[in-house]
């Protein structure tokens, strides 16, 4: 039943741009899909209480490495993007390995990764001779900006299909992780690292796997964002604001549900766009004002997010649908506090 519904929804999404292709709504959809993929990438590790505030850094690496290789080395994004993913994975491993090896968890992990996104931002600004610094950076157009070789397309429909494909791949990875042994190992680790280690879980290796996976996915989101917008600035793809924005969207959408980050992306982007259209420049700052209040309210009253809470309601109404419990920690006092 749900599988059939999923296929129907998927087919409808693929068919959409051929039926209705007004540029502005399609643009919003592409942006939502790319960010939904980025948020899904964050939640792949975030749902195991590995709260990283460094994903802004990985996104920046993805965007800038791809664009720099193209502009300075003439390397096609088809090679540049894998290189950027490798760079982001390597960066994640270099920072995360000592964290996991020396049991830097919870607060400490969040702050160390926060520092990481700060580093990436400062490096981009400091190397302004090559990256344009705070002014931003534009990949050079190739053959009028419409080329498969340069991964530049003027048609919004093409971008929509690419973003849709990547987003679907993100959901697929989420489900693969959800059904893997990795998930059980990481859940055990998030409950109690010592007990998990005693039960034979290689804590450092398992955490490193999911972190590198998550970082590479985020870098892909950054690269796609750059190729689509043909412009990146340090503030839009890296730094603390972006990292917090990811956390915010996932928490609001629902951290333990596969579509949660997507719901978060839809809400945040529609909110920002609605405010921008209805109030114009007078709305500067208002979207983040609303985000901030919502984030606090959600964490206090609805920590499972919108989709998680809706799912709970749905299950309460129809107990027949209760299958296995989703990947969420048991309520009650938290064990294995992170410090």
């Amino acid at each position: 039943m749900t599988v059939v519904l999923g296929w129907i929804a998927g087919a409808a999404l693929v068919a959409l741009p051929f039926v209705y292709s007004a540029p502005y709504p399609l643009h919003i959809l592409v942006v939502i899909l790319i960010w939904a993929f980025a948020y899904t990438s964050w939640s792949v590790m975030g749902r195991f209480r590995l709260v990283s505030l460094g994903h802004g850094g990985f996104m920046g690496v993805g965007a800038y490495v791809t664009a720099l290789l193209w502009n300075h080395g003439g390397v096609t994004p088809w090679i540049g993007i894998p290189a950027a993913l490798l760079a982001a994975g390597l960066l994640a491993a270099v920072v995360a390995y000592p964290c996991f090896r020396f049991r830097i968890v919870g607060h400490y992990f969040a702050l160390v990764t926060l520092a990481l996104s700060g580093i990436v931002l400062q490096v981009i600004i400091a190397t302004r001779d090559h990256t344009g610094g705070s002014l931003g950076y534009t990949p050079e157009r190739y053959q009028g900006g419409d080329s498969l070789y340069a991964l530049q397309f003027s048609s919004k429909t093409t971008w929509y299909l690419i973003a849709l494909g990547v987003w679907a791949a993100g959901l697929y990875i989420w489900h693969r992780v959800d059904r893997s042994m990795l998930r059980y190992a990481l859940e055990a680790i998030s409950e109690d690292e010592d007990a998990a280690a005693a039960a034979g879980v290689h804590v450092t290796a398992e955490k490193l796997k999911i972190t590198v996976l998550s970082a590479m996915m985020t870098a892909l989101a950054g690269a796609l964002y750059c190729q689509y917008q043909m412009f990146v600035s340090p503030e839009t793809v890296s730094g603390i604001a972006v990292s917090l924005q990811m956390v915010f969207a996932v928490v609001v959408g629902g951290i333990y549900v596969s579509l949660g980050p997507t719901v978060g992306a839809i809400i945040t982007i529609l909110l920002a766009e609605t405010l921008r259209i209805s109030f114009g420049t007078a709305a500067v700052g208002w979207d983040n004002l609303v985000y901030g209040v919502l984030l606090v309210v959600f964490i206090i009253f609805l920590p499972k997010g919108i989709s998680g809470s809706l799912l709970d309601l749905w299950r309460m109404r129809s107990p027949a649908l209760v299958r296995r419990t989703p990947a969420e920690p048991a309520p009650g006092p938290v064990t294995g506090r992170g410090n």
Partner: protein
Amino acid sequence: MDILDIYLLEALINGILLGGVLALLSLGLNLVFGVIDVVWICYAELIMLGMYGMYFLYVVYQVPLPAAGVVCIVGVGILGVVLHALVIAPLLGAAPINQLLATGGVLFFLQSAATVMFGIEFRNLGLRLPVLQVSEMFISYSRLLAFGAALGGMVLVYLFLSRTYTGTAIRAIAQDREIMALMGVNSRRMYLITSGLGGGLAGLAACLLVLQYDVHPFVGLSFGPILFLICVLGGLGNFAGGLVAAFVLAEIISVGGLYLDLEWGYVFAFAFFIVMMFLRPEGLLARRS
């Protein structure tokens, strides 16, 4: 004396002066973490509001500077109490990471509230404090003043924590949250006092920073990350470690900024931080278990 040495010496001295202010900043954050076990991600934004408070009091309402400073310290202190009562207190039983994320929400809120209310122009007090010249070196009075006030503030906090009854109770709570409640310490009251103190320190930092830097809604982002680095490097909640880390990082930034751009100073500081995470993951002054 070689001309390079003069510049190096000047950078070293400026590093020490910067270190004093950074140490004061990290002290408030460390205090709150040590006692309440919460990281205020929005700490730098409290300072930003304090800087706006100073600007409006001094420039718009013509309040004399020392009086404005006192109002600012008390005001941000009250903000700290409000932050604790509204956001942290309902989450005390939740996972620690939720508290951290909630203060992240407050960060968004304060930043955009400042954008909405004050706009994004850079503002400053318009003060020109004289510059002290020692042989060939130039050291600004505002930095010296900030350094002196930071040291004074730290000594006051130290005296409060070690000499008063309330201070002793706060330190006791930091050592063992569960037992002290049984000993008759009202932990809710201690948390509020600590939050007020942490906010007051942010207010003091705001008074000192506004003498040197322009204030704008995103000013918190320019020193927020380095602040968290200092606290983690020193060991969260470890006051002495935070002090040492503040001076070490300030020297790296100052001397690194001398040879290359200022941003490179920050990049070196970050790199140093990551290397130290390998070598001393529990903080600079932690005893190896």
